[in-house]
């Protein structure tokens, strides 16, 4: 679909719709610029038309160059794979816009981020509590992502107000931010009536490190280390999304050898994390033998990563323009041998879990997230596919995945068991993909080009193991970053977890949580 088609479809629903401009800089990205008055209507129309949640919603401070703030909303068109971005300008003296959250729930968290980071008020959003800048340590009035921000403003500190469930017999169980296991920090507040959970409020932001601000003013080619430290278990997906954004801006064509190598590494990352989660699910119901077995599989993949790239977590592998690591014949053979063995181990693990009745009893129908709720919340990625939302960026934007006939996996039930099955099937599919990609590798081909510098903006994306990792990048003519915004699949999926545990009991919470296995640092940035 090109820009004109999109506009004509919008016009069918909104007869007097007029865009200021429609730009299609890249084949997979259409940017529609509209007046603030019609921004909400346009977003609603696209949301209904494309059946897409708000994939990204973020602001930019352009007061220096154009004397306005810009707000962009990104939707996904599944067929053909395309990103549709709606953009509006907000005058600094208004500093507010009409909230989307009452009509599109998936916009709610993004709006709260805009409010706390830029001080732009989404009018009508029923919940404007801050997410990452905690009231206990950061006074109101300092907005870090504004360009003129220098340091924390002095002021009064407050306390966060939790949602309260009131009534006879209701009690609260607060957990965190420091948990019993070796895991990231987050605060969970359960409200219970008897045993079932009536409400769960998840408070995050404890790993907020100000990542988005750190990007500003740096060169696209100097931030690799930072990109790879955003989320330690999705290193490659993040570096891929970022590299892709840079390549789109500089119109660098990635060599096909590099594309296959990227496919291999992305799938290796998926494999070790899926093995980790399968083990985690087994461990959280107290089934320790398969958990140890899964830990061995994870270790085997990590050691394989180290042998191929000399980094267990695939750091310093990706770069804008290609990859830095090539696989010679020996390494290829080792990769195929190891994958064969790992595949067998995973099949054994699957039999182990599936043949245990008491294990199945714990995971079947536990932590159900129904499709309607998931759609409303904008749940994406693996958790979304487990309840029947068939969206996978590897399917929508096929590229090399189209060449090897990638099979997207979905489940319907949306419980812990479906998410577990998803992981087993995706693990199996990843093994197949790696074998296919390896067969396509040729020796002594170019694996890297040098991208140029340019002032532009673009959207990079990768289907990480949790789901889509999106990266919006805007640069100036020296290749310096003006704005870099990452969105992890975790951000809206945390809400999915909140609804999945309702009606379950607290002892089942760990297994529900592990079945989603969402990221703290990827969400908090």
């Amino acid at each position: 679909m090109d820009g004109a088609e999109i506009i004509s479809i919008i016009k069918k629903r909104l007869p007097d719709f007029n865009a200021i401009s429609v730009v299609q800089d890249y084949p997979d990205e259409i940017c529609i610029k509209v007046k603030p008055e019609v921004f909400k209507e346009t977003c609603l129309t696209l949301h209904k038309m494309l059946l897409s949640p708000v994939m990204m919603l973020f602001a930019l401070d352009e007061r220096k160059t154009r004397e306005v703030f810009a707000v962009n909303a990104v939707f996904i068109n599944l067929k053909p794979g395309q990103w549709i971005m709606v953009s509006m300008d907000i005058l600094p003296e208004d500093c507010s816009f009409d909230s989307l959250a009452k009509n599109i729930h998936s916009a709610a968290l993004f709006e709260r981020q805009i409010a706390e980071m830029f001080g732009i008020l989404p009018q009508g959003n029923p919940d404007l509590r801050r997410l990452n800048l905690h009231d206990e340590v950061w006074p109101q009035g300092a907005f870090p992502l504004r360009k003129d921000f220098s340091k924390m403003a002095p002021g009064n500190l407050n306390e966060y107000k939790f949602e309260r469930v009131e009534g006879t017999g209701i009690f609260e169980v607060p957990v965190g931010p420091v948990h019993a296991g070796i895991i990231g920090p987050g605060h969970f507040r359960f409200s219970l009536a008897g045993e079932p959970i009536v409400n769960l409020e998840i408070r995050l932001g404890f790993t907020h490190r100000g990542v988005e601000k750190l990007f500003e003013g740096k060169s696209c080619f100097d931030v690799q280390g930072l990109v790879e430290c955003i989320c330690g278990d999705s290193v490659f997906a993040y570096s891929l999304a970022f590299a892709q954004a840079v390549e789109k801006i500089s119109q660098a064509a990635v060599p096909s050898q590099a594309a296959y190598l990227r496919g291999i590494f992305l799938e290796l990352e998926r494999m070790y994390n899926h093995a980790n989660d399968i083990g985690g699910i087994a461990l959280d119901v107290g089934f320790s033998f398969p958990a140890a077995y899964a830990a061995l599989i994870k270790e085997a993949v990590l050691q394989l990563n180290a042998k191929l790239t000399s980094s267990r977590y695939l750091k310093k592998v990706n770069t804008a323009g290609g990859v830095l690591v090539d696989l010679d014949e020996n390494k290829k053979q080792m990769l195929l041998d190891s994958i064969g063995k790992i595949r067998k181990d995973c099949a054994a693990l699957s039999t182990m879990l599936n043949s245990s009745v008491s294990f199945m009893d714990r995971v079947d129908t536990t932590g159900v997230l129904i499709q309607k709720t998931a759609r409303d919340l904008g749940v994406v990625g693996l958790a979304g596919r487990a309840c029947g939302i068939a969206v996978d960026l590897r399917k929508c934007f096929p590229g090399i995945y189209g060449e090897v006939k990638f099979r997207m996996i979905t489940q319907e039930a949306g419980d812990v068991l479906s998410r577990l099955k998803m992981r087993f099937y995706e693990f199996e599919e990843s093994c197949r993909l790696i074998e296919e990609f390896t067969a396509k590798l040729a020796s002594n081909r170019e694996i890297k080009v040098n991208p140029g510098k340019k002032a532009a903006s673009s959207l990079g994306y990768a289907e990480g193991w949790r789901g889509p990792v999106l990266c919006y990048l805007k640069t100036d003519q020296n290749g310096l970053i003006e704005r870099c915004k990452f969105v992890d699949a975790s951000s809206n999926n945390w809400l999915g977890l909140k609804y999945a545990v309702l009606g379950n009991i607290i002892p089942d919470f760990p297994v529900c949580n592990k079945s989603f296995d969402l990221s703290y640092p990827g969400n908090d940035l």
Partner: protein
Amino acid sequence: MIYILKNRILKGVLSRHIDSGLSQEVEFSGQELKALIRKKFGRSLHIRQVDTGSCGGCQSEIISANNPIYDLQRFGINFVASPRHADALLVTGPVSKNMLLALKKTYAAMPEPKFIITCGECALDGGVFKESYYIQGPVNDILPVALHIPGCPPEPLSILKSLLSFLKQ
């Protein structure tokens, strides 16, 4: 269950993926560590881990250090659920302002004698995040640090070896 037992009898101890060089090294350093821990701590060293804003890489490696290949527990190192049970606090990540209070409270909840270990570049000096508006600063400026385990993230074997060389002092 039958499947697991059958698997166990047929395959024996799973050893295929373990690099024999690696396993010897782990075993060698581990036994030395075990002897030291036996002498200095009366059999076991209990560690409580706190994440103050890391990317999760260090945690992943600490978990790996407890997998059946490295299995720190057999050398007397236990990762415990509560600071009340801990001899040492293992901190990962730069200290985000949001985690400052939690870090101090966790340390205060530990019984004496106690010491702090930091793990990974971020915990040492903030790493790539050191210029950020939301980073409180290195752990060492907030609480006394006895040992730093370098790496981004440190590999399980280097976690083991750092602990060993520290306890030798």
